[in-house]
């Protein structure tokens, strides 16, 4: 029953998860819940940070890719965005855009 990600599959999952090619792909909602700590439960922040719920997927994806590549400078978001593959970012952005 345990769904360990094997080390060999780990790198693959980071690349392929959005395509569903990896067996242990991380679901976008699993990723998104980590955003909610600061950006509010369900993507509705209470602290003045950027809202994420219902934001255009392309806009979130572009921001995250730019953070990832240091084309856009933030404080912690550059370091966080590098923890996700481009495919994961695309899936995450798509999911966040569907939140009401």
């Amino acid at each position, binding site marked *: 029953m345990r769904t*360990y990600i094997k080390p060999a599959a780990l790198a693959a999952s980071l690349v392929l998860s959005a395509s569903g090619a990896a067996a242990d792909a991380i679901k976008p909602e699993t990723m998104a819940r980590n955003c909610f700590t600061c950006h509010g439960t369900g993507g509705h922040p*209470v602290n003045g940070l950027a809202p994420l719920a219902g934001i255009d997927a392309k806009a979130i994806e572009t921001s995250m890719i730019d953070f990832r590549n240091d084309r856009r400078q933030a404080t*912690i978001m550059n370091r966080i965005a590098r923890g996700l593959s481009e495919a994961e970012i695309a899936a995450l952005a798509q999911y966040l855009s569907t939140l009401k």
Partner: protein
Amino acid sequence: MSRETRRKFLIGAGAALGTLAYGRFAPAIAQGAAGRIVVIGGGFGGATAAKYARLLNPALDVTLVERDPSYVTCPFSNMVLGGTRTLADITHDRSGLARNHGVKLVQGEAIGIDAGSRQVRLASGQTLPYDRLLVAPGIDIRFGAVEGYDEAAAELMPHAWKAGPQTALLRRQLEAMDDGGTVIIAAPANPFRCPPGPYERASMIAHYLKTHKPRSKVLILDAKENFSKQGLFQGGWEAVYPGMIEWVSGSAGGKVSRVDARNRTLATEFGAQKGAVVNFIPPQQAGRIAIAAGLADDKGWCPVDPVSFESKQVPGVHVIGDAIYAGAMPKSGTAANSQAKIAAAAMVGLLGGKAADAPMLANTCYSLVGPDYGISVTGIYVATAEGIKEVPNSGGVSPARAAAAIRKQEAVYTDAWYKGIVADSLA
């Protein structure tokens, strides 16, 4: 807890059930099987787990058991010591979990777990049956682990490593101290709750001393050879409090072998150190219920499955937060909040006969060097066969050199993080 108060809790929870609006989560919710989840511990970990279990499956019966009537957060308790926050600012109630999410709140102390009959025993004699149990007990102080440091000693030489009366006591001692005194902070060996905490504490105490008792000093006696965000802290101290904070590593005489609380004196290999105020941060272990229930190993921490956070020692029981071995993740509030969501989803899935999803976890720890000087460490984590690992080439600390505006921005985000995690966990 009086019967009347408990009835009020339960009525509150029941009344909330009819009026909940889960609309915004509706597309993401896969309705799972009904069942009973009990959560022990209402800190950032336990509260978040209870809330998210209900968000993920509103059909579940979720009960949160917590000993203390309100939650005084450890994060930002250093700012209380520094005088930029009050205890009231960091004290929160958990009523939002009942009102907004239909979590049943029970005030009481869990003293035993019967994993066979799946029941939690409370000090009151009450028992709570569960289908899945989540334990988020935080830490307990290992009184007696360092000679001379027992509960009586903590009243003279506070640890203040659980926020509340201990924080207030240390603050009073700082206020009563004469200008020119030395405040000693003794920091423990790894692992312990909040790795950057002792050094943020030194910073916030230095902030208070600089503004009120400028001839005073802070001496950190450390059992370790290095510490979290070390370069950033030491660079910040030089910039903000030049000459005020001295750090002594374990091999240079920082390791405390014995305390004499009455004389505010610490014995080290290099002789005795006496402080005007001494904050002794002792060795720790998983919270008492984890030890009592056999969830912890002989070192006092709980081994868990890195995908579901189910205990490796007691089936059907999940453990999160400061009490566990979490691989690369530190013992922090954000880590507990992140683990809580993974464990909640795993419990909801398992109750419906589904294996836990592959996790992604996150940590962010902000620390204040000064009120306008913030630094951070962050990490993204995944599960591997070897446990929880950080995703390579991601995460890390604030830049070693940065303009004052960047440090100021991180101080603003420190405040935003606090408001955010309090709401995501409790509201």
